């Protein structure tokens, strides 16, 4: 299988006052199309940084990141935004639904931002799949945490992305809700053949993945 995401000697440093903190150092990563990969590590180990680098919303200090055929470092910010919009979906730890949009509007949002019309049927299908087809007009503040994350999963898939990035998707949910959300995420991505890159601190969550990587000394192993 060809690699969808490739890290070539990626280094990422953050400056904290006068100090320089090395999060990644010459990290290598290769994620194939359709694969489910978990990146595990303690809080602050750099899991979210890896996801942000893949999404192009953060830039490596050195090294190269390739997504499909595109070398992210050679793309303009606008091209990176378009790539992200068209080919990636996001699931965040704090759901990050837009409070002023209803459930259906939240799911439709990525498609609408891309100027695509006629995505309502797909959004309805996804909401049906995540079990929220009866809450279309509800606003996020009326939903439970689990329900909000299910909306976020539907939103991540509405553009039919090649890659879904999930950052601690169960981190803000109780165990039972977390398990059901995880199961849902796993099933909807696998069933539609999507690649899933998952950042988590939990061994149980990581166990669902085809492959588990951890960040040690700035490297993905």
């Amino acid at each position, binding site marked *: 299988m060809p690699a969808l995401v490739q890290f070539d000697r990626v280094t990422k440093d953050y400056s904290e006052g006068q100090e320089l903190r090395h999060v990644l150092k010459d990290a290598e990563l290769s994620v194939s199309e359709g694969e489910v990969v978990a990146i595990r590590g303690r809080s602050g180990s750099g899991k*979210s*940084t890896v996801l*942000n680098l893949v*999404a192009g*919303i*953060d830039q490596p200090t050195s090294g190269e990141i390739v997504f499909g055929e595109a070398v992210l470092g050679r793309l303009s*910010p*606008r091209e990176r*935004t*378009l790539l*992200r*919009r*068209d080919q990636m979906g*996001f699931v*965040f730890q*704090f759901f*990050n639904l*837009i*409070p*002023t*949009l209803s459930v259906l*509007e939240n799911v*439709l*949002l*990525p498609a*609408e*931002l*891309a*100027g695509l019309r006629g995505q309502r049927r797909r959004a309805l299908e996804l909401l049906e799949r995540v079990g929220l087809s009866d809450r279309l007009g509800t606003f*996020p*503040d009326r939903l439970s945490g689990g329900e909000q994350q299910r909306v976020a999963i539907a*939103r991540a898939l509405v553009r039919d992305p090649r890659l879904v990035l999930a950052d601690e998707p169960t981190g803000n949910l109780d165990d039972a809700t977390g398990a059901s959300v995880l199961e849902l995420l796993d099933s909807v991505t696998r069933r539609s053949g999507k690649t899933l890159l998952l950042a988590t601190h939990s061994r149980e969550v990581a166990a669902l993945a085809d492959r588990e990587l951890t960040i040690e000394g700035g490297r993905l192993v």
Partner: protein
Amino acid sequence: MIPNALLRTGLRDLVRRPLHTALMILGVALGVAVVVAIDLANSAARIGFARSTEAVAGRATHQVRGGPAGLPEQVYRQLRVEHGVRPSAPVVEGVVTALDLGRQPLRVLGIDPLAEAPFRSHLGEGSIADADFAAFFTDPAAVLVGAAFAERHGLAPGSPLRVQAGDRRETLRVLGLVDTGDPESRRTLDGLLLLDVAAAQRLLGMPGRLSHVDLILKQPARDLAFIAGLLPPSARLVPANEQAKTVAQLTAAFELNLTALSLLALVVGMFLVYNTVLFGVVQRRAIFGTLRTLGTTPGQLFRLILAETLLTAAVGATLGVGLGYVLGQSAVRLVTRTINDLYYVVSVSGAPLTAATAVKGVVMGLGAAFLAALAPALEAARVEPVTALRPSTFETRARRLVPVLAACGGVLAVLGATAIALATRSLLASFAGLFAVVLGIALAAPAFTVGLMSVLRPAASRLLGPVGRLATGTVARAVSRTGVAAAALMVAVSVTIGVSVMIASFRATVANWLELTLQADIYVSAPSPGGARTAVPLSEDTAARVAAVPGVAEVETVRIVHVPSPLGEVQLAVSDATRTRSAALYRVSEGDPQETWKRVRAGAVLVSEPFAFRHAVPERGGSVTLHADHGFVTFPVAGIYYDYATEQGTVLMAREVYERHWDDHARSSVAAYVAPGHDPAAVTDAVRRALAGHALRVVENRALRRQALRIFDRTFAVTEALRVLAVVVAFIGVWSALLALQVERTRELGTLLALGLLPRQLWALTLLETGLIGLAAGLLSLPTGLALAVILIEVINVRSFGWTMPLQLPPLVLVQALAISVLAALLAAVYPVRRLQRMSVAAALRQE
């Protein structure tokens, strides 16, 4: 009490959020600065007048005053020499213009040094340096001036001092400098020229006449009746402070209007404080939740917010006092110029900051900040340990409050309108009602904003897709700050509309009135140091000289004097006009204008609209009693006429009637009609040539109208400045609200960016949001501004000055108001968007 640890978190928070702390300081500082500046200007003018009055009146307890032409000097001689009334001193008083000292008005005080000592210490206790004292009696051009005044203007003994007195220019000579050790007395000498009585009589054109005789009555109960019995009918014995009191009352309404406008800036500043404090509370919700979990009581959080606010406000108020002092120096120039134009002559060299003004500014700033912080402090106190982590709690509660606020606003507006309707003469109640109406509508602004968004949402969604939907949704759901921003902007813009419409209506009315009033082609008068109250007499032959100029068909004259009456001092305009005036000049008249003027020539008088309002003269059957040379005379009122020249009101009388009751034949101005076929400009030049040698102002009709309108515009300069300041404060308010909103939504916007929102879409979204707030404010400000205009024109103007005028609505004002609202809101979005653009999406997503 607030535990130290809690206080530390609050103080550190103020330091860690410098922008917001600065905004709050700015809000209070600007509000306080405007209030302090106006207070300084008002009190500087008041103090200036009090000092000049004190300089003239000194320790006199009573004065003997005469009619318009003054008091015959024999009265003084008889009192002092024949009847032994002492201490007594003659005084000749007037105003001249200093031609080489920026044309500033100087008060002339003609005194008899030998009788002066008990009254004024200018000569007795002070030291007259380098003065050849005998010359004070013998040299008619010799004057003494205050040492500080001389130093400021580079004058020394021997210096020439060119002045304009009436229609003559004179060169006086500084004989010596008067100085006293006491700084207060030194100030009373500012702008004062001391002359011998005879020299002052010559300078002011009052031969054989005195302005008044000063007396110190040790036993007034016994002496008053005795002295009154010695006086001729034309003279009156009055308390020495009578005139000062009358004059101070004149400017009361003017001062109140300015104070009300300055308070408005403070109210708009309160919105800014509210927004900033609320933002601090909303942003620290999670921290407060933790603090509550750790055992902090709601009361402690409430006090913490108030303490933070008061501390910041104290800094703002202190800065505001300093800024107000700086602004006050400009405001005092504008205010004294208006007072000089309209009321009385006052010379003010600066506006010193008094402790009273500073304390007032600080207390008002702290009070305003305290009131503005109450609601956010209550919100902080309500934070529950559990709900603290739920971000939408506050907005949900705020949304529930919106209809309640609107209902309260409605009740407040109705109460305000009722107060205005019921208190038919009280200006203070009218202003309170006006504030209640505006505040009431402001309270309804959040509901209006939410309603407008739900109306616009479908169209915005259809036209602009998710950006339209997001923008309308955000504005409606973040109503705790968007609604308040809209309210602040609405108040400022509606004030702009209200004041602009009022000024435009006033200006159009005055322009129309000038056209109706100024019918003659050429006007001749002596340049007066002040406005209407200081109209100076012309030389006796001026009217005859003008009438003799070829091309002049007819002349009319006017004499402006001030005569006593049971109502206080009354301005009397005496006219010898024979031409019939337009019927449009009369608000009420019996019969046609010709008939009315016939009645006036037969012995009736006309009163101006402000006079009728001030003294409750009925529309029919009224009368006015005036003190003439031979005692009190009652004149029937034949009509009420429109007059926008003076707000204190005027009684208009025919010359033949005036001369029957007063021994005064002087004229204050001459109006000439050019005969048909003659060029008015050429005739004007001929009049100038005929009057060569007299320092008279000869102007054509058009120039006089232009000049009158220029004074009108000058009068409203302070109003305009205050209006601009209110808009500036509101703009900062909207800016801070938007900034707060964008900061609060950083993670939400970060999510949007992560989901593929392009930078131009971010711009579009933010500009649309702020534009919608501006639109809501603009739309609501139109009816509010018009209501404000109606109240200003129909109520405040009438109750302040007695002037009525039709409302004129320049259509551009409304378009401008809407444009200002939207533009201010759009401009306010620039910084927040740029800030977001600089922030990385990853960082935005990490924001709590």
